[in-house]
């Protein structure tokens, strides 16, 4: 058999592979071990998710926190490209370099924080068709390493997950209102899921109490289903009470049917036991006892002290 055999060609293959490994960027399709997380900077909600408003907004921004095993060299002009992908396809590891969601960023280290990433672009590049769809959409965050800024010799440096929380909760119901002293206790229950209102996990409720004569609207909550209190109200004024549910990411559902204004939505002065006692002419004025009996306090203390002292002696 003429020509070099497979066994003879292996040393050469090993050397070529070693060179490829030592020169990152030349080995197309390689994946480094790393993670990236994103925090939407315009809200205080939990990291790793965005709501409907943030998804649709062209001004909503996120910060990406990148950790990778690749150590870029600033002097070489190494860069990161930020991209997104559907969870079905995942981040691209070979072939053409995907488009970025933001301008390529100069890589300054294996750990890097990248700010001002537009959230809406993150959604559109990951194939989120509309920010008002009924169900949540999970996407992948992808960070590509561009050695020397090259768009040909690149590799996937880190990946992570992000959730567009787009579902809204169903319309809640008000099952009762209890008047209090300058407040209303509103009993709220969650609504029934529909085709377009699907959020049920970690849903909270707020209630709104609007005076019949206009003026400031008081709100109560957010809280779990049950009694939510509207406080700071004016006794004797009838209020119109509504409730709204919101998802964990802050997507508001439809407003409930209104209750009131009527007698049950009218806060009333509350008479405590003390009010009733004094109103009936009770003589006790409150406070510490008056007259000579107030001197009993030190006498009691002295007796206790003497009892202990006697035992010690």
């Amino acid at each position, binding site marked *: 058999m003429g020509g070099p055999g497979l066994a003879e060609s292996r040393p050469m293959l090993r050397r070529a592979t070693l060179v490829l490994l030592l020169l990152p960027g030349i080995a197309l399709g390689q994946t480094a071990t790393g993670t990236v997380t994103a925090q939407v900077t315009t809200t205080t909600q939990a990291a790793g998710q965005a709501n409907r408003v943030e998804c649709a907004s062209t001004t909503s921004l996120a910060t990406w926190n990148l950790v990778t095993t690749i150590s870029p060299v600033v002097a070489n002009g190494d860069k990161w490209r930020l991209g997104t992908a559907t969870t079905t396809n995942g981040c691209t590891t070979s072939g053409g370099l995907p488009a970025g969601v933001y301008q390529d960023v100069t890589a300054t280290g294996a750990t890097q924080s990248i700010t001002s990433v537009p959230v809406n672009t993150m959604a559109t590049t990951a194939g989120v068709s509309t920010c008002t769809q009924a169900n949540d959409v999970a996407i992948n965050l992808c960070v590509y390493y561009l050695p020397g800024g090259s768009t040909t010799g690149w590799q996937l440096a880190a990946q992570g997950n992000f959730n567009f929380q787009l579902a809204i909760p169903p319309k809640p119901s008000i099952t009762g209102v209890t008047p209090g*002293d300058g407040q209303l206790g509103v009993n709220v229950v969650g609504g029934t899921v529909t085709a377009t209102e699907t959020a049920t996990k970690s849903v909270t409720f707020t209630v709104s109490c609007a005076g019949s004569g206009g003026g400031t609207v008081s709100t109560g909550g957010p809280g779990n289903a049950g009694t939510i209190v509207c406080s700071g109200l004016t006794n004797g004024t009838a209020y119109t009470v509504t409730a709204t549910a919101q998802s964990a990411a802050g997507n508001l559902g439809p407003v409930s049917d209104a209750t009131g204004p009527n007698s049950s939505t009218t806060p009333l002065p*509350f008479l405590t036991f003390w009010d009733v006692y004094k109103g009936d002419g009770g003589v006790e004025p409150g406070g510490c006892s008056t007259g000579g009996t107030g001197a009993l306090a030190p006498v009691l203390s002295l007796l206790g002290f003497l009892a202990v002292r006697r035992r010690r002696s």
Partner: protein
Amino acid sequence: MRAAIVALALATALPAVAQSPVLTVKESPRVGSFQVTLSPFSPNIDSEFTNALYPPYATIFGTGRPLMVQGQFNMSAWVGQFGTLDIGVGAGFWEAWGEGWYQGTDGTLLRGGTTSLMIIPIQVQAGYRFEWFYERFSVPLEPYAKFALVDYIWSTSGQSGVSSWTSPGGVAYRGSGATFGWSATLGMALVLDFFDTGLSRQMDYDVGINRTLLIVDFTKSSVNDFGSKNSWQLAPSYWAWSIGLQFVF
């Protein structure tokens, strides 16, 4: 043969003694006691409103008697042949919850909402426990008597913390304060050690508790700042019974 029997008896008796060293130890000296009691309690606030159709306390809190829990700590001032004179301090807690009133826009009153009256009784007391029956005849009963000076720290509240009432003249009265008085108690203690002397001695040996008593007593009291015309009556109108445990150490 006789020597063998004695030797056998000693051999069997010695391990028993070794296993029960407590039985050979004398009772530790008694220096004091502490106790915990429960008592149904209802203040006689409505004594001011004898002719009222709706006296305030009964109207708000009803006629029930919520439990008052109290603890006392005493030091033995004198241990004599017939009994022990104790001097000590005590504190407790009691609270009643009731339904208040809402005042409608047309002046009508509607029941609803929650209001409460809370009392923290503190006291200094002197008492004598007659132990002669148990010490002399092993009859497990110890009658006792106590007298106490008490201070009831109280507070009323509604939906917005401590209550406050403003008179038509504009004077505000805060619904909290302290009221002094006295109490006298007669009771009977059942000496539980009588039923298991071995366990009793073991308890003394382990933790220094000489005696455990089941106590039942009746207390007559007056808590109205010693008859002040500007004070309500926070003591019950009746002899209040209580039950509890007392530990002598």
